[in-house]
């Protein structure tokens, strides 16, 4: 009995207590709402006042001619007073990290191709003396493989500053059936004395065009000599790079790279890292409007027979600006390879030279000549290719290109038959999002 009454009274008191608390909270809420409303009114009024004041000062400005801005000391004092009075408005959510998001760019590339050989024949293409056709191996033709339509890639490029010491870049190539890490590397930000360090997987700065991405090339296909001596990927490998800008009036940059050497066209020894690259680049102005950029490069590594391969490169670019939007650029590159094996050494070489005329912001046109002039003793040394292109850019980040190629460098199939091919290509490339400007 007693127990029951105690329990009841307890329950009652609890509910009573709860009741009174609820009332209290309700009253508090009502009060708060009143306060908020009052505050809102005040804010609206103040805003009105401020607008009127601004308007007044503007008209004042107009009437009496511009007033010189207040002295920095007063501005600083004013700012300090202001910050004391009202804490800064935070618009972001607590722990929001949006402002740390990297720059993101998407690059899309596709084409329509007409070619004088059908797809199955084109897949058996090789360059006599430089590459070979193996029916058992899958062929790798990275761009514009098909007659008809090609979607080459969607490239995703990310760039972000990691901290005071490093920047990070990652470039992914997404093909219709593959995901590929094109590059992913960090670059030092704070090394002294003109030094810069890069670590990761990246395109080597050997030569002129090797480090440049396909979407920034002036012709859709890779130069023949690169394809022949370094394969369709060029030198793109894991490793480390150190570059030094010399403290001279003339631009001189020296760079060294140590890489894994997984490029099996010229290197590819799998026992240990085998590739060492060095280069020297310099640039001078010729007159007010012309610039000359030249480079010498060497790549020293071990090939899959365990012997040494040396590739030497020399490049020269001359660009003359005719006005803000018009220029002529002449670019040439020569590569020489000495590839040793059990029975001696293979010495092969080739070059390309290209001339691009930028007519205005929208239109440009160019021609390129490719030649492999030094080959194995029994192989042809007149393997060449002619390319001409016309490019239309309705906007800076949108590009359409019509390109004609007459190629005398290929042989097809297992019967060693050289065959000249011609190709007409209409391609598009777009760069969307936050994409950094391209270098010279």
């Amino acid at each position, binding site marked *: 009995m007693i127990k029951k009454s105690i329990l009841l009274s307890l329950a009652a008191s609890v509910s009573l207590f709860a009741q009174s608390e609820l009332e209290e909270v309700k009253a508090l809420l009502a009060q708060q709402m009143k306060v908020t409303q009052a505050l809102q009114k005040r804010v609206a009024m103040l805003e009105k006042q401020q607008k009127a004041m601004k308007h007044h000062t503007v008209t004042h400005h*107009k009437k009496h*001619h*511009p007033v*010189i*801005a207040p002295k*920095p000391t007063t501005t600083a004092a004013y700012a300090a007073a202001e910050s004391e009075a009202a804490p800064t408005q935070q618009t972001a959510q607590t722990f929001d990290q949006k402002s740390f998001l990297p720059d993101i760019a998407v690059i899309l590339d596709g084409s329509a191709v007409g070619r004088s050989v059908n797809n199955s024949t084109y897949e058996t293409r090789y360059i006599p003396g430089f590459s070979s056709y193996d029916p058992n191996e899958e062929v790798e033709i990275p761009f514009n493989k098909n007659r008809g339509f090609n979607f080459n890639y969607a490239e995703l490029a990310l760039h972000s500053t990691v901290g005071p010491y490093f920047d990070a870049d990652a470039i992914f190539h997404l093909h219709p059936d593959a995901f590929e890490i094109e590059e992913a590397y960090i*670059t030092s*930000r*704070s*090394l*002294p004395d*003109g*030094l*810069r360090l890069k670590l990761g997987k990246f395109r080597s700065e050997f030569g002129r065009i090797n480090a440049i991405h396909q979407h920034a090339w002036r012709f859709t296909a890779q130069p023949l000599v690169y394809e022949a001596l370094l394969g369709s990927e060029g030198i793109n490998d894991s490793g480390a790079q150190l*570059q*030094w*800008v010399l*403290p*001279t*009036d*003339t*631009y001189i*940059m020296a760079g060294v790279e140590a890489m894994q050497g997984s490029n099996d066209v010229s290197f590819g020894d799998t026992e240990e890292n085998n590739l060492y690259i060095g280069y020297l*680049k310099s*640039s*001078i*102005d010729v007159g*007010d409007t012309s*610039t000359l*950029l030249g480079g010498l490069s060497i790549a020293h590594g071990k090939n899959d027979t365990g012997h040494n391969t040396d590739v030497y490169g020399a490049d020269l670019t001359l*660009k003359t*600006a005719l*006005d*803000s*939007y018009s*220029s002529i650029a002449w670019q040439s590159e020569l590569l020489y390879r000495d590839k040793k094996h059990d029975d001696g050494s293979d010495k092969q070489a080739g070059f390309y030279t290209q001339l691009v005329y930028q007519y*205005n*912001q*929208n239109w440009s046109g160019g021609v390129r000549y490719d030649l492999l002039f030094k080959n194995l003793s029994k192989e042809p040394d007149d393997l060449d290719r002619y390319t001409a292109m016309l490019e239309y850019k309705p*906007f*800076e*980040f949108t590009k359409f290109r019509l390109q004609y190629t007459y190629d005398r460098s290929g042989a097809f199939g297992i019967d060693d038959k050289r065959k000249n091919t011609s190709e007409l290509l209409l391609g598009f490339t777009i760069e*969307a999002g936050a994409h*950094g*400007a*391209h*270098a*010279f």
Partner: protein
Amino acid sequence: MKKIVLTTLILSVSLFARINVVASYPYLGKIIEAVGGDNVKVKVLASPKFDPHFVIPKPSLIPAIARANMLVANGAGLEIGWLPPLLKRANNPKVRIGAAGFVDVSRAIHLIDKPKAVSRAYGDVHPEGNPHFDTDPHNVLPIARYIVKHLSIVDEAHADDYAKNLAAFSSRWKRFLGQFDATMRGCRGKKVVQYHELYNYLLRRYGIKPAATVELLPGIAPSSKHTMALIMKMKKMHINTILQDPYHEKKTAKFIAAKTGAKVIILPHDVGAVSGTGTLEAFYNTIAERLCH
């Protein structure tokens, strides 16, 4: 003999003591020279003859940046197409973005024309606002003060010199502004068409109405449809002045002028852009004379 050696040593040391300052555009070079005096050595990257948006990032410009103690940029996105790759290659942490030696003078300016919505569908827009504040001489002093603030941090030893130079430049410039304002007063109420929105700061300050642009959208060349519409508009609004910068094509402006009877005025956009604009004063005087003769 000893004396000669000593003097050359001292000379070379004092020469060495000058700090290297790189400016993206010529007008900034002139302001730095005015407030930096003998303590700075100035190198300008862009030529005033070309479009400031489309400077060729020549590798030959890299050594100056590599050795700079300070880099002064216009900012507000104007150099985005050419300076970042040069900065990256120069490997100089002193002038990297965010370092004390990197000076973005747009921070000293209240930017106008800030787009409400940012999309590349509207052409080459600058999300920060209009970056062409250099065409208004009233922006020179805030920029000079901002540069001196940073010079005094980078080269603390000469902070007093910079303050003195600034005071001298300040009074020189205020005198100039008085005279400039008097010339510009005659232009109030004028309506103009400009090729690109290069002169908005100046026009707004002096009550001149920028009615339209010759180009279709920022950075996008005029289309014939846009040109015809512009001719109609100019006739309707009785606009008889086209402001043309020295570096864009002049054919369209001339065509419009022929159809409307308007006059094409070529205005410099920077120090040295047209002949006879070698100093800051000459640059602004040329603008005032050509706009409000």
